[in-house]
């Protein structure tokens, strides 16, 4: 790892000022992806701005019909939070399945979505539940936030502050994890609620998370696993690597979608 200047601001304004005065600054949530990336010298920022000491970024609140999760909230807190467990159990289960306990104690929701790893779990949660991303500048619908592999709608000087999840009537998440990394080979979030019927897939798409409109249409008629029988996704634009071919991933999307709907109850 190359050396860098380290900053630990106490407020978003301080963070923005540290970022703007750096020649090549990088924001850090829990560092569970950024630090391994720096170790491999895949990135060498001049400055790292650690957001973990900004108290307004952490915590989970219920606001109207939504659960709002601060960007600096770690996965273990989301998994263990009573509001999340009772209102959106699928989200608690998804957070509980990320990485391992030690990674969940440090990795944050804001860091995960800003990184937008194509095999990460949270993008499926945000798109599959119709969440809204709040930043220091604006609010962005999850559908517009994830723009491609490791790409988001965030501007260079934009910081994710929170994610608001509308409480669904039903939601389920099913993941076929890579047995070593626990990243999703395929993960599917299916839900029915104020954001409509949604099916979002992570791990499979070359461009990251995507929705499956054919499945959403089928589930809008009847929200049951049987409704998905015969509905498939083409393998054309899916990832292929040593873990799974594109065809196998396409098959898994169908299987995981059914399991997600079953889990939604």
């Amino acid at each position: 790892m190359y050396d860098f200047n380290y900053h630990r601001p106490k407020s978003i304004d301080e963070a923005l000022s540290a970022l703007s005065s750096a020649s090549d600054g990088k924001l850090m949530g829990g560092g569970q992806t950024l630090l391994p990336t720096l170790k491999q010298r895949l990135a060498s920022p001049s400055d790292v701005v650690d957001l973990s000491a900004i108290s307004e970024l952490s915590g989970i609140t219920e606001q109207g019909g939504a659960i709002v999760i601060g960007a600096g909230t770690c996965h273990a807190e989301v998994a263990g939070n009573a509001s999340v467990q009772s209102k959106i159990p699928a989200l608690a289960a998804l957070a509980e399945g990320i990485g391992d306990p030690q990674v969940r104690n440090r990795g944050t929701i804001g860091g995960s979505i800003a990184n937008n790893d194509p095999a990460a779990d949270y993008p499926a949660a945000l798109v599959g539940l119709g969440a809204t991303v709040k930043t220091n500048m604006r609010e962005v619908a999850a559908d517009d936030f994830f723009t491609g592999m490791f790409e988001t709608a965030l501007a260079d000087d934009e910081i994710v502050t929170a994610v608001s999840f509308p409480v669904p009537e039903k939601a389920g998440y099913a993941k076929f994890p890579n047995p070593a990394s626990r990243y999703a080979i395929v993960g599917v979030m299916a839900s029915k609620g104020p954001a409509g019927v949604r099916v979002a897939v992570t791990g499979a798409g070359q461009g990251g998370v995507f929705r499956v409109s054919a499945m959403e249409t089928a589930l809008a008629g009847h929200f049951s696993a049987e409704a998905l029988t015969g509905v498939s996704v083409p393998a054309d634009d899916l990832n292929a690597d040593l873990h799974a071919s594109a065809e196998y991933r396409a098959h898994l999307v169908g299987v995981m979608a059914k399991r997600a709907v079953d889990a939604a109850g």
Partner: protein
Amino acid sequence: MPSVSMTVNGKAVTGEVEGRTLLVEFLRQNLNLTGTHVGCDTSQCGACVVHVNGKSIKACTTLAVQAEGAEIITIEGMATNGDLHPIQAAFKEHHGLQCGFCTPGMVMSAADLLQRNSNPSEPEVREWLEGNICRCTGYQNIVKAIQAAAQAMRG
């Protein structure tokens, strides 16, 4: 060069580090606390697990400067007055180690589990150990040791 201060095993410590210095490097090289191991250095194997403010984390994927002001417990902080911690004693009793390289991380990870769940089932122990890799034991005696420690600690 940044200065960092934290409490390690109940003792206040201060040191000069680089921004990039990992917590595990600070513990091993600055403080000579070499019980915390570096196995994979890619946050997968868990040999470097320590507690930061009561939660288990991977010290190879945490910067020393991120631990500013924190309470750290390492494997060296587990025994009391020369008496092994019940988890350490159970690993010894149940042969929960062979080469011993992964053991500090296993013990620290298990300690975090048992403070959350005083009576974990075998699947719960195995699930919790997702982030700790052992290449000798096949895990059987590690799981047995952690369940025995849980029983001993419940009294």
